[in-house]
């Protein structure tokens, strides 16, 4: 452990030196990289370049209409662009909607007013709440099969007074009106639960059981790709004993599309 720590310190101290070693010579990069990146020409009267990918970072340069820029990469809703004089900055995607490709078509951007399923079919999020009396932390990954139906896998870790448990779940969720800003849904699924009882004297065996669940929830779209989600679910754990166990769960958290 100590050797690993020393190695990690050495690596972490060395990495900032790479910053200077890898600093590129920015002269004439625009010509050298002309085949590598998407090139567009500015069709609006001007395009503002910010020093960072955020509306609060100041504008340091303005590109005039007709000039060509290269799009290096994208972070959230901002493009890192380079202009004809090798100046590099950040431009907002909304401001780039009117820029034109070499073919004369507009730069293809996803719809920026609400969720674009073609560009962002995946959803991931984390929630916390209460499962059968214990605190639960959950993460999930969901794929939109169509605007109403999505398939979801989830992992949940419950910390209770008498036992901990881990669950892996797979289910389907159906939202009747996904176009509403606050959109309700129902879900149904199955999974496995592994329970770790907390006792100090006797160590009972850990058990793994199959379960099924059904529930309702609501998704509140805060921005185009960021949402708040709350769920209420009923679980039925199929045990080997005479009686199955029922648990209720409520949880809430945040999620994003990508």
């Amino acid at each position, binding site marked *: 452990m100590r050797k690993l720590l020393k190695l990690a310190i050495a690596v972490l101290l060395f990495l900032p030196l790479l910053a200077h070693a890898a600093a590129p010579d920015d002269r004439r990069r625009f010509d050298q990289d002309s085949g590598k990146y998407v090139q567009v020409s500015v069709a609006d009267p001007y395009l503002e370049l910010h020093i960072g990918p955020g509306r609060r970072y100041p504008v340091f340069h303005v590109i005039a209409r007709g000039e060509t820029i290269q799009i290096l*990469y*994208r972070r959230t809703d901002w493009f890192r662009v380079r202009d004809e004089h090798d100046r590099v900055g950040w431009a907002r995607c909304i401001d780039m909607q009117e820029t034109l490709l070499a073919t004369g078509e507009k730069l293809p951007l996803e719809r920026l007013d609400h969720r674009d399923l073609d560009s962002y079919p995946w959803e991931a999020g984390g929630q916390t709440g209460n499962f059968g009396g214990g605190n639960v932390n959950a993460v999930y990954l969901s794929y939109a099969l169509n605007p109403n139906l999505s398939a979801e896998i989830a992992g949940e870790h419950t910390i209770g007074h008498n036992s901990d448990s881990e669950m892996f779940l797979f289910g389907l969720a159906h939202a009747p009106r996904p176009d509403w800003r606050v959109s309700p849904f129902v879900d149904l699924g199955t999974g496995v639960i592994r329970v770790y009882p907390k006792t100090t004297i006797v160590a009972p065996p850990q058990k793994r059981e199959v379960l099924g669940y059904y529930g309702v929830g609501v998704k509140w779209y805060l921005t185009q790709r960021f949402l708040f989600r709350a769920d209420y679910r009923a679980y039925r754990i199929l045990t080997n004993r005479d009686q199955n166990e029922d648990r209720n769960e409520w949880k809430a958290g945040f999620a994003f599309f990508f």
Partner: protein
Amino acid sequence: MWPFHRKSHRPPQTVEATDTDTSAPVVEPQVVRRKVKTPKIRNSNFEVGGDLGVLSVEDFGANGLANARVIYHITEDIFAEGVYGESRLGLTSYERLSGGSRLLTDAQRRLRYYTLDLGYDLFPGETYVGKRHTYNSALYVIAGVGATRFGSASHFTVTVGGGYRMLLTDWMAAHVDVRDHVFDNSLLGTTRTSNNLEGTLGITVFF
């Protein structure tokens, strides 16, 4: 005098060299439109990195901490983060003063935690280092939930804190963080809510 034709009364016919039907073109042009392929624009929303620092656990002293983290930038202000950290517990004052009786074995003193946080960039800006260097930076706050495991038990943890990120290059950032892990600890007889502070320094790389 009908069998003898003396002179033709028809005017001489002129024959045009290009006497063809002009409605059908002679040459059919074969036009094959070349599909212009636009290269894809790369997305760079993920950050991966690690930190080193100190974690102080109430009653158990302060020990070194190593973290690994993954960050996903959702919007320009909001990001999601997952952290996994490892540390060790020291001796409690009870164990020191009582002359040898141990509450936990050495194996049980290994501390591991994970948290899932949501972060908000409060104050983005620029940092000036010396006369010639400027770096993009941001002061951010985070809040999240997770679990901390030590002494053979997991404890539900709420984490709040903040940090300062400085972008050294396009693809690398350095950050300093201070976090408070709040969980209920019942190892010393009574159950009480403990506040456990950590301070770390780290590097992340953008993908």
